C-alpha cells in the first residue's frame, strides 16, 4: 500500500522579534496556529491531531509545555505529540506530523514549533553549571567558529564569503514581513566592519535571539482538494542522526546530512539537486554554514560551495536562491527555526511568499539541523503532487 500524499495547505508565523512582551507563551503559539488555520480556511474542529516541537524546556522554564498548551492549540480530546531533536526540531516536528497523514492515521494535522527566548536566556539554558565539566570557554559562536576555520582550510575559501551571505540574508529579510531583523540601512561594508567576535566569525554573521512561532496545517489528498489556495506537496522527507562527537566525525560536512539529503532526493526522484531544485531554505545560524551546507546537500562539489555564494548564485534573483526569507541569520526562535525553513519552502512552491517569492519555484528544499551537527531533518516540497 502506498503512502498517502501529504499537502501543506496552511502556513502561519508570528512577527518574530527579540521579545513578545504582549502575549503569554500560549498567546504566542496561538497566533501562529490561528494564522495557519486561516490560511487553510479551517477551524479547530477540522484538526485531528497536534504535533508540537521546541528546543530545551529550560529555555522557557516549563517542563513539557505542551501539557499547558493543549487548551490554546485546541488539542483537548485529541492526540498531541511533542518532539525534541535539538536545533533540527522544527523540521523533525513537521515530519512526524506528515507521517501521521502519510500513514493515514489522521486526515488533517496541525504542526507547530516555537521558542519564547525572552522568558530566560538561551546561553543560561545551554550552559547550566554541570559539576566536574569544564565551563564552555568560548560562548555560543566559539562552538562553531573552529569548524568554519576547518572549512576555510579545506576549501580554500577567501575570508570574504561569510560577509556576502550575511549581507544577502539581511537584505532578503527586508522583503519578509515576519523576519526579526529588518536592517534597512544594511551595506556590505557595514557587515565587513562589524566586530570579529569569534574569529573567523563576525557579529553580523551571527543569528539573533527571537521570540516566535511557526505553524502548518498538513492534510491528505482529499483535504488538499478542499484547500482554498494551492497546496505544497511533500515529495520527500527524512531525518538522520549521528553521534554528537566521535572519532573521525566530519563537522564540516557531516555524513548524516549527506545521507539525509540523499534519502530525500531518492524519494523525490531528484537526480541532480543543482538542476532539479529551484531554491533552498537552509538552517544557517552562522553565515559560513551556507557554503558548507551547499556542499553537504549536494548543490556543489566538495570545496565548491563558496564559489556559488561568491558568484551570486544564491541571491534572491540567482540561479539557486538560498534563504529567501532572510534565514536563521535574520530570525532565530530556536525551536521554530527549522519549521520556518520547512514552511518557507512550502510558501515558495505555493506562490505565497510575497515579496521574497522566487518566480516559478516548483521544487524547494527545507533543511534543519541541530546538536553538534548531529541531527538533520529535511523535506522537499513541490507545486505538484507526487507521482504514484
Amino acid at each position, binding site marked *: *500500500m*502506498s*503512502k498517502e500524499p501529504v499537502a501543506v495547505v496552511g502556513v502561519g508565523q508570528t512577527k518574530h522579534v527579540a521579545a513578545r512582551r504582549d502575549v*503569554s*507563551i500560549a498567546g504566542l503559539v496561538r497566533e501562529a496556529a490561528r494564522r495557519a488555520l486561516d490560511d487553510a480556511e479551517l477551524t479547530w474542529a477540522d484538526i485531528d491531531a497536534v504535533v508540537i516541537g521546541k528546543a*530545551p*524546556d*529550560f529555555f*522557557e*522554564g*516549563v*517542563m*513539557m*509545555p505542551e*501539557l*499547558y498548551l*493543549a*487548551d490554546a492549540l485546541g*488539542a*483537548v*480530546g*485529541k*492526540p*498531541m*505529540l*511533542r*518532539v*525534541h*531533536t*535539538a536545533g533540527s526540531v522544527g523540521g*523533525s516536528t513537521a*515530519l*512526524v506530523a506528515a*507521517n*501521521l497523514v*502519510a*500513514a*493515514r*492515521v489522521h486526515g488533517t494535522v496541525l504542526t507547530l514549533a516555537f521558542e519564547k527566548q525572552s522568558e530566560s536566556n538561551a546561553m543560561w*539554558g*545551554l550552559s*547550566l553549571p*554541570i559539576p566536574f565539566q569544564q565551563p564552555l570557554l568560548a560562548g555560543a559562536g566559539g562552538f562553531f567558529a573552529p569548524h568554519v576555520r576547518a572549512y576555510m582550510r579545506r576549501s580554500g575559501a577567501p575570508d570574504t564569503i561569510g560577509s556576502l551571505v550575511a549581507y544577502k540574508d539581511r537584505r532578503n529579510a527586508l522583503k519578509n514581513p515576519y523576519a526579526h531583523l529588518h536592517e534597512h540601512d544594511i551595506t556590505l561594508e557595514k557587515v565587513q566592519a562589524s566586530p570579529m567576535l569569534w574569529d573567523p566569525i563576525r557579529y553580523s554573521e551571527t543569528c539573533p535571539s527571537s521570540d516566535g512561532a511557526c505553524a502548518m496545517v498538513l492534510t491528505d489528498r482529499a483535504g488538499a482538494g478542499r484547500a482554498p489556495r494551492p497546496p505544497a506537496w511533500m515529495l520527500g522527507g*527524512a*531525518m*538522520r*542522526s*549521528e*553521534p*554528537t562527537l*566521535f572519532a573521525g566525525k566530519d563537522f564540516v560536512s*557531516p*555524513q*548524516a546530512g549527506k*545521507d*539525509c539529503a540523499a*534519502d530525500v532526493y531518492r524519494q523525490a526522484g531528484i537526480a541532480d539537486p543543482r538542476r532539479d531544485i529551484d531554491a533552498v531554505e537552509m538552517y544557517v545560524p552562522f553565515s559560513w554554514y551556507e557554503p558548507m551546507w551547499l556542499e553537504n546537500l549536494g548543490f556543489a562539489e566538495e570545496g565548491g560551495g563558496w564559489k556559488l555564494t561568491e558568484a551570486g548564485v544564491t541571491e534572491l534573483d540567482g540561479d539557486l536562491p538560498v534563504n529567501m526569507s532572510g534565514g536563521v541569520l535574520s530570525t532565530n526562535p530556536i525551536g521554530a527555526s527549522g519549521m520556518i525553513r520547512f514552511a518557507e519552502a512550502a510558501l515558495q512552491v505555493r506562490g505565497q511568499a510575497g515579496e521574497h517569492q522566487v518566480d516559478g519555484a516548483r521544487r524547494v528544499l527545507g533543511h534543519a539541523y541541530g*546538536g*553538534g551537527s*548531529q541531527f538533520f531533518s529535511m523535506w522537499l516540497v513541490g507545486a505538484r503532487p507526487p507521482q504514484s
Partner: protein
Amino acid sequence: MTREIAVVAFAQTDHRRSTEESSEVEMLMPVLHGALAQTGLRTADIGFTCSGSSDYLAGRAFSFTLALDGVGAWPPVSESHVEMDGAWALYEAWTKLLTGDADTALVYSYGKCSPGSVRDVLTRQLDPYYLAPLWPDSVALAALQAQALMDAGHTDEPALAAVGARSRADATANPHAQLKGPQPHGDYVVRPLRTGDCPPVSDGAAAVILAAGERARQLCERPAWIRGIDHRIEAHGLGVRDLTDSPSARLAAERAGAFERPVDTAELHAPFTSQEVILRRALRLGDDVRVNPSGGALAANPVMAAGLVRIGEAAARVHRGESDRALAHATSGPCLQQNLVAVLEGDPR
C-alpha cells in the same frame, strides 16, 4: 488494509532508587543490547529509532543527545526523539512503520529520578502563571484527585491499600521491580494518600523493538500485534476537569479498539493507587481482567520510561503465551491529563 505491526522484543533495567554509579547512557546501553539480542538484530538492521526522555528530569539541556551514544548511530540512523514518556516514542515509531518507510524500529526511554526531587521537578509541568508558582507537588495533586474519588464514593482508604498490596505482591514475580512483597500502607504523605499509595522513586530504562508483518514473525515466535493504539489529552487546569474520571483514557481506548472484545490483561500506568481505580472504571476493566501483573508503576516508576514499560510488560506476556489480548496504558501530566492506550494480541494458539 493497514500494515500489521508488533512488539517483538522488550528489555528493561532492574529499576532502583539510585543508579549514581552510572551515567544515563551507561544505564541504558545494556537494555538496548538486551532488546537487540532477543531478535538477533544489530543497530544497522534497524529501520527507525525513536526515544523518549526529559531534560528537566536530568537537570541538563539536550540530555538525550548523549544517550544516543549507546545506540551506536554510525553509519547515521533515521532517528527521532520525543520529550515524552517512551510510550509516545513507540507511537511515533508505529506511525513510521505504518508508512512503509521502515520494517523495524528500536524504541527506548530512560529516566533517572534520583538526581532531583521528582515531586518538585514535576511542578514545572504546570501552568507557569497560576499553578507553578505555588509549587504543588505531584503527590499533592494526586491526593486532591484521590479525595475527590472518595467523596464520589468510588473508593476508600482500605480499597486503595488493597491496590498497593496486590501490586507489590505481584511484583515479587518481577525480577526488575523495585518495591515488592508486603509493604505497610504507611503514614500519610499528603492525606488521603499514604506511602503505600505512592510509587517508589526509580531510576530505570526500557527498550522495545517493533517489526512489521512477516518481519515480525521471523523475529519473534509469538509477536504481540498492535491491534490499535491511540492517545488523547485533556484540558490542563485541574479545576475544569472531573478528576474522578478519565475521558481521555476512555476515548483513546475506544479509538484503539479496546472495547471491541474483552482483554484478559491490562498493564496500567497508574503511579498512585487511586489512579488505578479511575482507570479501571474509564477503561471498563472487570474483575476478571488481570491488572498489572508486573506490579505496575507502584512497584517501579522510572519517570519517562514507566509508560513504555507497561507496553513492554503487556507484550512480554503475549510473547510468553500468558495473554492473548492485553491492554497497555501510559499517562503523562498532572492527574492523568494525557493518556495512551494500546491493544496487543497474540496469534491464536
